[in-house]
């Protein structure tokens, strides 16, 4: 299972804070995004935002990336703390 989490504006736009996706269906980050957009067509534009940051297991990643069972994948907008 892949745990997927969303934060801030993105969480509000999607109306979802987290969900689980079976690892059988998604082997990579790209496949995960495709899967989420297919399941929820209204999410497509929000997830296509090139400014979104992506972290796997609390570490930033860029580009595509393999996923493993138990991974936590986070999508969120640029950070604004401090």
């Amino acid at each position: 299972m892949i745990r997927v989490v969303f934060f801030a504006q993105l969480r509000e736009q999607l109306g979802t804070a987290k969900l689980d996706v079976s690892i059988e269906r998604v082997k990579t980050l790209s496949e995960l995004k495709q899967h989420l957009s297919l399941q929820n067509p209204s999410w497509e534009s929000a997830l296509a935002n090139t400014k979104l940051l992506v972290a796997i297991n609390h570490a930033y990643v860029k580009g595509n990336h393999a996923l493993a069972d138990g991974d936590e994948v986070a999508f969120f907008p640029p950070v604004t703390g401090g």
Partner: protein
Amino acid sequence: MAFSIAVQIDDFDVGQEYSDLVANDVSAGAVVFFVGRVRDFNDGKNIASLSLEHYPGMTEKILQQILDEARRRWQLVSARIVHRIGDLQLGDQIVFVGTASAHREHAFQAAEFLMDFLKTSAPFWKKEKSRDGSFGWVESKDKDDKAAKRWE
């Protein structure tokens, strides 16, 4: 407590944080700190309050990484990052960064580095409430990205 981070709802006491930074260490000839507070104007909007969201677990990990990197780059006796989450009012303290070193330039540079990287990589998000009652997520700023890039 020589090197530590904290993500907390509670306020922090600047005098106490300063004392902890220099406690019993007479090599800490130079101490620099930064405090960020909720200010009245941002991007032309009249701010009434803030709500700070974060990514539990990742936030702490990133802050620790930033602190470790600062220790590698500069000669520090101690350093600390405290960041608050939750609802904050005008004038409330948001973030504390403190550095102590034998050398003033190390303390200053490390503090600026910590703030620049915290701003661009620690997963916190601010939602502002304006005085007219409207809410809006704070936009990230290009100048913060530029500030972080100067350390590469």
